[in-house]
C-alpha cells in the first residue's frame, strides 16, 4: 500500500517543489545570477530590468545595508562605509598586501581574518559578500517564484582553500546552499559547450573591471584540468576607461577643469561601448559654465590610446602558456570573458597573439554566470546535460610542515578531486597523547614559501611508549577543492579529536555567531529561517528517497527494511507540519541513518554494473535515465 504512494509522484504529500538551482557569478566588480530556461541560460534582472549587480555594499548606522547601484552611488561621498571589490579580500589575512592597501579601516583582532569597520559595525569579507549573495538570492526566488534549492557559485581558478572556504562561508550567511564551487574559466568554457566538444586546450581570457586573468585549460575525456593561470590584479577594463577619460579632459582643454573625473570616466565608458559596434563615438561633455564641449573619438584613436594596456595583458598570456609547456598554436579555442573584450581591438590583439579567431558568441559579461547556470541545472537533474561530468583538479599542492621548516607534499597540485591521501605519524615521547600538524598550500619546498592553511591539533591519542602509536591522518579534498582532515590511532582504533585553527579562516564558533548576526540584521526570525532551510533539505531528502525507492526499493530491501524506512519517512513528513526546525533536523537525520545500508547496497550494485565491461552507449543510456 505504502509503496503505491511512492510509485505515484503526483500523490506525494510533499508540496510540489521546484528544483530551482541557479548559477552565481560573484565578481570583483559586478555579480550576476542566471538560470536555465527551456535549455537556454538567462540572466535574472532586478525590478528596473538591470541584470548586472555592482559588487558594492554600503553600510549606514541603524539601517539595512544597501547593495548594487544604490551603494555604488555612495562610493564617492562615503568611501569608508561603501565597500567595493570585497572579493580581493576574501580569505586574506590582515597581513596581506591586498588587505593593508585596501584603504578601509581595519579592526585588529587576534583572528587572522580582517574585519572592516563601518558605521553599522565591523564585518568580515565573507559577511560583506553575503550581502551581495542575499540580494541575488532574493532576486532568484522572485524570478522563479520558488524557494532556492541551491546554487553553483564561481570562483577564480587560482583561489586557494581559504578563499574558497570564505566564499562558502558567505553563502552560508546568506542562506544559499552551494551545490558546487566552479572555477570561473571552466564555467566560461561550459557556456560555450566546449565540454561537449573534442578534447584539446582552451584558453580563457578574462578582462574584468579591475583584474585580468588568463587560464589555460585542458579538456581530456571529460576532465577539465587547469594547466596554468596568470594575470595582473591591477589591470582591468576600468583602466581602459581611465586613459580615454584623460584624453577627453585634455581635449576639452582648460574649461574642463570643473569636470569631475567621475563624469569623464562615465563618458569614456559609454564611448568604449559605442565603439564596440560603431566606428565613431560622438562625445558631449557639459562644462561647468552652462557650456558644453563636443568632440568625436574614432576607433583608430581609441585603439592607439588603449594599445599599451592590451599589450600588457599579453605578458601573462605568454607566462601562462610557458608554465603549461605550450605554444600559442597548441590552443584549440579562446574564450573571451569580461565586458571590455567586446572591443574589437582587444579581440584583434588576442587573435593575433594566438594566431586564430577568438570565441565571442556569448555575452562576455554573462558567460561565467551562464556556465554556472548550466552546471547548476545539470547537478539538480533538470537538464539534458545531466550527463555532463566535470572532473576538476586541486589548484595548489597541499603539504605538511616537517622538521626544519620544510614541506612534505601530501596531495600534489593537479590531482583530480575528490582525492584522499593517508599519512602515518608516530609519537616522539612516552605517553604522548597529543600532536600538532601544520598544513600549508603551495608549490615551494619551505613553509615560508607556502601559504599556511591551518593547524590541526590531534588529541585523545592513547598513551603508549614513544614510536608505538600509529596515527593515520587522512587528508581529503572534496569536489569543491576544500580540505578536511581526520585522524585515527591504528593500533587501538581510537578516533583522535581534531581541533582546527584555520590560519586565515573563521572557526566554526565564529561562523555560528556571524550567522546569528546576519539573520538579526536582515530582521528575519532566526527560527523561521532555520525552519525554512531545514524544510528545503527535508523535501529534497524525501524526493531523493522516493525516486530511489520507486526504482529499486524492492530489489535491495527486505519487506521489514522497507517498512522501517517508510515509517521514518512518515515521521519526517509529520515533522514538516510541526514547524520546529530542530525536530525536523532530527527526523531527517534519522531517515538518513535508516537509509544508510540501502544507499550502500545500491551504489555497490550500480558501480558493479557500470564496470562489468558494458559498452559505452549502454552506460550513456543508464545515466540519462537517472
Amino acid at each position: 500500500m505504502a509503496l503505491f504512494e511512492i510509485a505515484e509522484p503526483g500523490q506525494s504529500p510533499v508540496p510540489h517543489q521546484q528544483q530551482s538551482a541557479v548559477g552565481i557569478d560573484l565578481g570583483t566588480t559586478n555579480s550576476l545570477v542566471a538560470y536555465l530556461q527551456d535549455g537556454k541560460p538567462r540572466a535574472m534582472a532586478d525590478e528596473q530590468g538591470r541584470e548586472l549587480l555592482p559588487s558594492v555594499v554600503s553600510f549606514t548606522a541603524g539601517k539595512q545595508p544597501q547593495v548594487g547601484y544604490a551603494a555604488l552611488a555612495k562610493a564617492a561621498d562615503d568611501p569608508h562605509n561603501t565597500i567595493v571589490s570585497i572579493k580581493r579580500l576574501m580569505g586574506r589575512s590582515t597581513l596581506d598586501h591586498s588587505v593593508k592597501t585596501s584603504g578601509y579601516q581595519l579592526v585588529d583582532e587576534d583572528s587572522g581574518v580582517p574585519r572592516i569597520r563601518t558605521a553599522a559595525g565591523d564585518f568580515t569579507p565573507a559577511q560583506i559578500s553575503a550581502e551581495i549573495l542575499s540580494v541575488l538570492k532574493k532576486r532568484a526566488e522572485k524570478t522563479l517564484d520558488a524557494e532556492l534549492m541551491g546554487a553553483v557559485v564561481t570562483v577564480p581558478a587560482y583561489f586557494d582553500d581559504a578563499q574558497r572556504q570564505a566564499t562558502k562561508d558567505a553563502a552560508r550567511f546568506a542562506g544559499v546552499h552551494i551545490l558546487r564551487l566552479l572555477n570561473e574559466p571552466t564555467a566560461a568554457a561550459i557556456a560555450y559547450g566546449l565540454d561537449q566538444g573534442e578534447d584539446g586546450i582552451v584558453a580563457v581570457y578574462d578582462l574584468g573591471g579591475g583584474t585580468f586573468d588568463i587560464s589555460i585549460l585542458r579538456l581530456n575525456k571529460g576532465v577539465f584540468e587547469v594547466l596554468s593561470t596568470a594575470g595582473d590584479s591591477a589591470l582591468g577594463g576600468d583602466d581602459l576607461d581611465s586613459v580615454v577619460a584623460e584624453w577627453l579632459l585634455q581635449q576639452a582643454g582648460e574649461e574642463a577643469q570643473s569636470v569631475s573625473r567621475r563624469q569623464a570616466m562615465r563618458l569614456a565608458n559609454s564611448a568604449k561601448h559605442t565603439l564596440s559596434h560603431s566606428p565613431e563615438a560622438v562625445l558631449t561633455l557639459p562644462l561647468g559654465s552652462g557650456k558644453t564641449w563636443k568632440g568625436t573619438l574614432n576607433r583608430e584613436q581609441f585603439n592607439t590610446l588603449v594599445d599599451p594596456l592590451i599589450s600588457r595583458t599579453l605578458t601573462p598570456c605568454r607566462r601562462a602558456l610557458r608554465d603549461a609547456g605550450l605554444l600559442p598554436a597548441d590552443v584549440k579555442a579562446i574564450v573571451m570573458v569580461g565586458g571590455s573584450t567586446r572591443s574589437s581591438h582587444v579581440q584583434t590583439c588576442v587573435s593575433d597573439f594566438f594566431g586564430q579567431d577568438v570565441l565571442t558568441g556569448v555575452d562576455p559579461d554573462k558567460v561565467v554566470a551562464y556556465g554556472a547556470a548550466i552546471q547548476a541545472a545539470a547537478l539538480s537533474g533538470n537538464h539534458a546535460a545531466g550527463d555532463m561530468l566535470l572532473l576538476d583538479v586541486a589548484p595548489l599542492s597541499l603539504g605538511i610542515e616537517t622538521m626544519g621548516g620544510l614541506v612534505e607534499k601530501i596531495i600534489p597540485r593537479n590531482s583530480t578531486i575528490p582525492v584522499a591521501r593517508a599519512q602515518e605519524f608516530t609519537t616522539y615521547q612516552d605517553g604522548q597523547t597529543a600532536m600538532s600538524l601544520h598544513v600549508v598550500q603551495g608549490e615551494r619546498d619551505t613553509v615560508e614559501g607556502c601559504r599556511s592553511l591551518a593547524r590541526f591539533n590531534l588529541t585523545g591519542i592513547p598513551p603508549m611508549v614513544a614510536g608505538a602509536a600509529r596515527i593515520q591522518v587522512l587528508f581529503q579534498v572534496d569536489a569543491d577543492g576544500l580540505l578536511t582532515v581526520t585522524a585515527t590511532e591504528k593500533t587501538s582504533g581510537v578516533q583522535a579529536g581534531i581541533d582546527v585553527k584555520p590560519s586565515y579562516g573563521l572557526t566554526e564558533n565564529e561562523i555560528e555567531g556571524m550567522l546569528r548576526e546576519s539573520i538579526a540584521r536582515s530582521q528575519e526570525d532566526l527560527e523561521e529561517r532555520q525552519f525554512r532551510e531545514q524544510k528545503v533539505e527535508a523535501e529534497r531528502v524525501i524526493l531523493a528517497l522516493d525516486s530511489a525507492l520507486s526504482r529499486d526499493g524492492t530489489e535491495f530491501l527486505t519487506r521489514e527494511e522497507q517498512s522501517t524506512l517508510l515509517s521514518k519517512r512518515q515521521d519526517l513528513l509529520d515533522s514538516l507540519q510541526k514547524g520546529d526546525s530542530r525536530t525536523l533536523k532530527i527526523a531527517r537525520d534519522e531517515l538518513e541513518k535508516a537509509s544508510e545500508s540501502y544507499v550502500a547496497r545500491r551504489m555497490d550494485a550500480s558501480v558493479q554494473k557500470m564496470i562489468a565491461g558494458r559498452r559505452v552507449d549502454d552506460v550513456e543510456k543508464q545515466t540519462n535515465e537517472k
Partner: protein
Amino acid sequence: MTEPVPLLAILERNYFQLFELPEQFPLDQSVLNDKYLHLQKVAHPDRYATALARERVMAGQLAAYANEAYHVLKGDLSRAQYLLQLTEGASAQQGTSVTEPAILMEQMELREQLEGISQSQNPLLAIDQFANDITVKTQKLKQEFGESFSRKAFEHAKRIVNQWQFFDRLKQEVDDLAAELEEGN
C-alpha cells in the same frame, strides 16, 4: 565531526579489481581510461548533488578511491610498485634488497654527469642527450620488469623497480634543470 559512514563493499577491491582489469603489468591505457570514466559517471559526488547526504559522502569516498586507483595504474612505475605490493601482501616478503655495487657506481656516475651539464659548452644540447639516455634506460627497465614479473621472479622484479625509481627521480631533476636552463636563455 561527522560520524563515520560504513564503507562500500566495492572499496575492498584492489585497484585492478575495481576496474575489472587483470592483475598484470601490461595494460591497455584506453581500456583503463574508459573504465575510469564510466566509474566516475556513477561515483562522482556531482551526481548526488540532490541525493541523500549519506549517498553523497559514499560517492565522495568512491570517487576518491577511483581517482587514486586510476592514478596508480596509469603510471608504469607506480603500477609496477603496486603489483609488487600486492604480491608482498600475499607472500609476506619484506625488506628492501641491497643495490649491487656496479649499479650503485653507475648511478653515482650519472649524477655526476648531470651536475656537469650546466658547465658544458652547450648545456641545452647536453641535457637533451642526457634525457634521451635516461628514457632509453627506463624503457629497458620497464620491459625487464614486465618479463620478470610475468615469470613470477618477484625478487628480481623488485631490484628492477629500485633502479627504475632512481631513474624516475633523475628524470625529474633533468626536467627541472632543463626548465631552468631554458628560462635563463
